[in-house]
């Protein structure tokens, strides 16, 4: 299988139930790959599209993903300083082999596509027709991101007992860019293993997942974290790396372009670049290295950006 074919598989797929008469709209958006109802697959294929047929049963079997973004939550989140973020990266990490479906309102398709792509999730997107152009632009951008497969970076492990409580803990940990690996039993690879219900991590504490995430943050300490983000409370990240390089996915859930996002990544990196949706490839700014970390500024990020770093020799 070619790299391009692999890339196409890693892209989220637009679910399009309209008939062939809507072909012009898809073509205008630059979308050439679609997931369609099984009985329409042949006609779309004949029209030159790359088609994945999906039966109603297959669609229904996919895990439904909440609409990504920020939502008002009176008394829980501050609308300007720390908004409530709806994000599903933790969900994809928890069930990497699962299949997902988004059904998002107008304005959310590009964010949903970026979120799924960042985590390599097998996701289908049901979108508002008004978003076709924006989704097409995002998918076109995602195709330009050089394909790289690197292991995820984690600072600690969360033992998944399958419970809703643990799910919400994962959600709030991810919300704070606390990088964790989901494991089925404690792993010696990590200094911290969180298993809800143990004396160290009692279920009563986990009932307040925000406070619980803070406890983990304190336990880990900010200095030891693999990733820090400064200049926004609504950019959530996925970091992958090996000995020679690192890739950082940044998803901006806030809906407003951010200028000058500062990032600190553990490890010494000599060089790097950032691919910014809507802006293309940009240089990292104000890059500085410390003994054990590298800092840089991303000039701007609207919805999604990918940073590639090369390890210092």
């Amino acid at each position: 299988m070619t790299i391009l074919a692999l890339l196409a598989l890693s892209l989220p797929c637009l679910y399009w139930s309209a008939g062939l008469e809507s072909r012009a709209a898809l073509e205008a958006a630059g979308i050439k790959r679609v997931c369609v109802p099984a009985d329409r697959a042949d006609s779309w294929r004949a029209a030159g599209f790359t088609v994945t047929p999906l039966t109603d049963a297959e669609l229904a079997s996919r895990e439904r993903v909440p609409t990504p973004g920020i939502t008002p939550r009176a008394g829980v989140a501050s609308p300007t300083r720390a908004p409530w973020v709806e994000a599903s990266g933790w969900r994809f990490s928890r069930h990497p082999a699962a299949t997902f479906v988004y059904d998002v309102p107008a304005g959310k398709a590009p964010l949903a596509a970026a979120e799924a792509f960042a985590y390599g999730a097998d996701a289908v997107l049901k979108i508002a027709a008004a978003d076709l152009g924006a989704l097409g632009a995002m998918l076109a951008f995602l195709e330009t991101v050089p394909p790289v497969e690197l292991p995820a970076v984690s600072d600690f492990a969360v033992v998944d007992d399958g419970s809703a409580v643990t799910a919400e803990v994962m959600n709030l940990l991810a919300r704070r860019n606390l990088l964790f690996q989901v494991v089925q039993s404690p792993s010696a690879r990590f200094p911290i293993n969180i298993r809800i219900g143990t004396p160290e991590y009692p279920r009563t504490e986990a009932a307040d997942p925000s406070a619980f995430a803070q406890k983990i943050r304190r336990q880990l300490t900010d200095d030891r974290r693999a990733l820090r983000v400064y200049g926004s409370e609504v950019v959530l990240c996925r970091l992958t790396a090996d000995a020679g390089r690192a890739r950082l996915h940044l998803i901006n859930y806030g809906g407003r372009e951010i200028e000058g996002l500062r990032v600190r990544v553990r490890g010494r990196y000599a060089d790097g670049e950032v691919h910014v949706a809507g802006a293309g490839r940009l240089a990292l700014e104000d890059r500085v290295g410390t003994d054990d970390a590298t800092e840089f500024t991303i000039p701007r990020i609207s919805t999604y950006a990918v940073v590639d770093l090369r390890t210092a020799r």
Partner: protein
Amino acid sequence: MHRRSFVRLLAAATYARTTLARASAAAATEAPTVGAAQKNQDLPALRVVSSYKPAAVPGMPGPFPGRVVAVNSGRSVDIATGKADDAVVREMMARGMRALTGAGTTADAWRRFFEPSDVVGIKVNCGGYPHCISAYEIVGEVVRQLTGVGVPVAQIYVYERFQNQMDECDYAAHLPKGVQFVAAERANRNVDNSGYDSATYLEADLFGEEDTRSNIMRLVSRQLTKIINIPNMKDHGATGVTGCLKNIAYGSFSNVARTHSGGKSHTYSVVGRLAAMEPLRSRTVLQIMDGLRGVWHGGPFARTTRYVFYPRQIMFATDPVAVDRLLLDIIETERRAHAAISIWDRSPASLKMNDTRARDADPNVNIIIREPGHVEYASALGLGVYDLKKIKLDQLTV
């Protein structure tokens, strides 16, 4: 009687007397000690990151620690209209600057601080628009005097953090063409960081926020050689008052609203720590406290005239602590005149957390436990003189 008329009359009556003397006398016996404010053991860990070295004589407290010149004029502002008299303000400025420096001429007084090669920032305060901002007449006179000593207009920067506030105030319409206007962010939306210096910041985890840095404006760290601070005499819901220290600190750094939340304020230590950071501390060489108008409640905002009052004075100093120490008493005295709770009030009964509507409607409501002790804390950082007995106040009348 119409409420606005009542406020005007009250303000006129209050400030027909010698405000400072009365305020200081009251405060000398009643201002709590710092122990009544946030206790030291509760202070958050603050990490300062800056490669800038202090000047031989840092601008704060500068060459005149503990020295304040207050110039009063009943003709400076028409209380009925709120309009300032440009000529009277100009005379107040001249008298004040000469008295502060001891110079024989006004130009010599300004030369004491500035030379033609300087790149000068004027830190205005736009938060109290439309009724209490750094007065156009004062800012205009500052620009006039700077150009008079040879600073080119292109090297004069009026700055604030938020462009939308600067737009409202529109200083450009009142200043010579060529003066620069810089804001770090388009608005208070936490999305614009490029106007800040990524290498110079205060780091602190105050309430578990993820963004733990407050960065200094690039303009301040990389362009300006001197700064003139022009705050207003205002009450503040988190700090008790917002004067020299708060205006220069919170007006020059990013991400500072995070210091007060859920009824608690870390402004007690953060205000002073930011003001003391280099290069801000060394470059801020002159404090001009605009007391032509003031706000005794609901600050830092002044969207209505309900809490506006008219001290009709301007203070001159290099020591921000000394000015703010006097300001504490001015605001406290004015609040007392309106039977409002003290800025030092820490009673839970007065607290309606985050309820800005209740605060705006009732001067006996706090939305946060205020920290007026931040002024004394700043003194402990070496930024100036807090002890009233050691503050030398010269009062002049124009």
